[in-house]
């Protein structure tokens, strides 16, 4: 069953675009990464899913039921952590936990455990909390009722690496328990760490959707090769899939290899005597940025660019570029 379904979801604020023609599905029990830079439309999408914003066009469904602006029952099954954490400044963390529990009409089954794991002091007023501690409180409030669907908007913003890891661990556990997670982020390492599938939103539109595995398979590789003798850049640049070849000194070349070309690169290197070689995998972040650049037409030779212009589903990896 699909937990989240949107069909042509569009939201405009007057003439300003929020999100446009967004069609996507998130299956039950999956961790879906919703990836895009600030202002791409991630939060708008989430607010439409939660019934806080009225879509200009299109539909949004949760658990197979259309989202209703004035509905409340769907939200009983959802835990939400907002991107910008705003709470009642004069009240304590404990007060917020009771406030949320009161409206849910249920005891927060995970509250004590989360308070302990995040090392959070619920007796402090929100105005006394640091940004990171406010984020912890938001996470506790969103997760403490063990909802079927967790919607997390930049959930680790302001957290130190230890607490970030604690959040990832909690997400892993919730998913293992059969819960669904919709994680909006612009931090690619976060998406890489926890998500199975990723939708890339750009300028309000879903630009691509594929599995993280597939995205990682498209990783870029940065090469630095030192030869025993002077060598011209054309030596590497002539390998299909290799570009941005630069020479450092007479005997060292740097280059970027994209896609499944590493075998060709190694075969070409074998034609000369190599004294040193470094092959470094680019991060998902670099892949993402590369993808964006390609979409903006900065590098027409890019593989991603050609994908983007040809709407097609990658059956092997379940990828789709729009």
């Amino acid at each position, binding site marked *: 069953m699909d937990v989240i379904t949107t069909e042509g979801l569009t939201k405009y604020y007057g003439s300003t675009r929020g999100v446009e023609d967004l069609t996507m599905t998130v299956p039950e029990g999956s961790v879906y990464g919703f990836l895009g830079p600030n202002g791409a439309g991630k939060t708008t999408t989430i607010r439409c899913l*939660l019934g806080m914003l009225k879509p200009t066009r299109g539909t949004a469904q949760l658990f197979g039921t259309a989202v209703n602006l004035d509905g409340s029952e769907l939200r009983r099954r959802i835990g939400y952590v*907002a991107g910008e954490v705003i709470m*009642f400044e004069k009240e304590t963390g404990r007060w917020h936990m009771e406030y949320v529990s009161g409206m849910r009409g249920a005891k927060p089954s995970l509250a004590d455990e989360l308070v302990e794991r995040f090392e959070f002091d619920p007796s402090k007023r929100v105005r006394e909390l640091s940004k990171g501690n406010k984020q912890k409180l938001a996470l506790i409030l969103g997760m403490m009722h063990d909802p079927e669907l967790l919607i997390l908007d930049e959930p680790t913003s302001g957290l130190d690496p230890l607490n970030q890891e604690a959040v990832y661990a909690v997400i892993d556990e919730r998913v293992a328990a059969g819960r669904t997670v919709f994680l909006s982020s612009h931090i690619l390492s976060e998406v890489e760490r926890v998500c199975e599938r990723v939708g890339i939103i750009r300028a309000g539109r879903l630009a691509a959707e594929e599995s993280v595995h597939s995205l990682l398979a498209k990783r870029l590789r940065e090469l630095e090769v030192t030869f025993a003798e002077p060598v011209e850049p054309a030596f590497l640049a002539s390998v299909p899939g290799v570009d941005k070849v630069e020479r450092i000194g007479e005997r060292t070349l740097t280059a970027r290899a994209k896609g499944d070309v590493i075998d060709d690169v190694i075969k070409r290197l074998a034609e000369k005597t190599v004294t040193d070689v470094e092959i470094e995998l680019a991060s998902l972040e670099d892949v993402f940025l590369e993808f964006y650049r390609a979409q903006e037409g900065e590098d027409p030779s890019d593989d991603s660019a050609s994908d983007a212009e040809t709407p097609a589903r990658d059956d092997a990896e379940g990828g789709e570029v729009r």
Partner: protein
Amino acid sequence: MSWTLLRATLHQRRASMFWFSVGLVFYSWLMVWFWPQIGGGQYAEMIENMPPEMLALFGGNDISFASMGGYFQTEYLGLMWMVIVGCAIVMYGVGSLAGDIGKGTMELTLAQPVSRLTVVLTRIAVLVVYVLVLAAATFVPIQVFGPTYDVDLTARTFWLLFALGSLFMLALGGIAMLASSIFRDSGKPAGIAAGLLVMMWILDLVSNVSEAAELFDPVNLVGYWQPGKVINDNVVAAEAWWVYGAVAVVGLIGAVLVFRRRDVA
């Protein structure tokens, strides 16, 4: 209605509710205490010495300022009381919806399984509580402390003042909440609601000396607020109940309808 939301809303407004109430209790007590000092002969003499145009401007044609009702109307209930409860009710009304949306706390509330209808009805329930508390803080001290200072109001007068005052505040609250349901923060709705109240007060003053301004009398909430007549004559014009009731109902229903359909983030 959500009890959790009701308790939370009251909890968050407790300080303003407390201080406005304390202020009104003190002011009411001060007014009944002053009545024997400046009421009666001296007060009548001072009023008689005022220019007739000024007396007319402040409604001196309709009520004797030297009477107990005139005293309470000019010195307290006809102006300062309206300013105090106007501030309290407008602040609450505009903060209850637009204020929460502007601050972002509405997102936390509406992320929970609570409908918008429940939220707005709960905020209206708190408005009613607020109005009753302010009415009690105003009129109970007059009734309780009054006999000590020769201010003897009948039970009917007390209840008429209490009911009419409450309905006046509810009407004002209805306007404030309707404005609050439309905007994204509390600045504009506060300006609209407070501006309307000030405009109605000015029109009411001017209508005492200008026939042109009387044109607005049928819809002027301030014009129907005549506590002096209630104290002196034990009567309230039937239209006052209808106009206050209608404005309150239309304002609050309008707030419900708008809030249920609007973007809240």
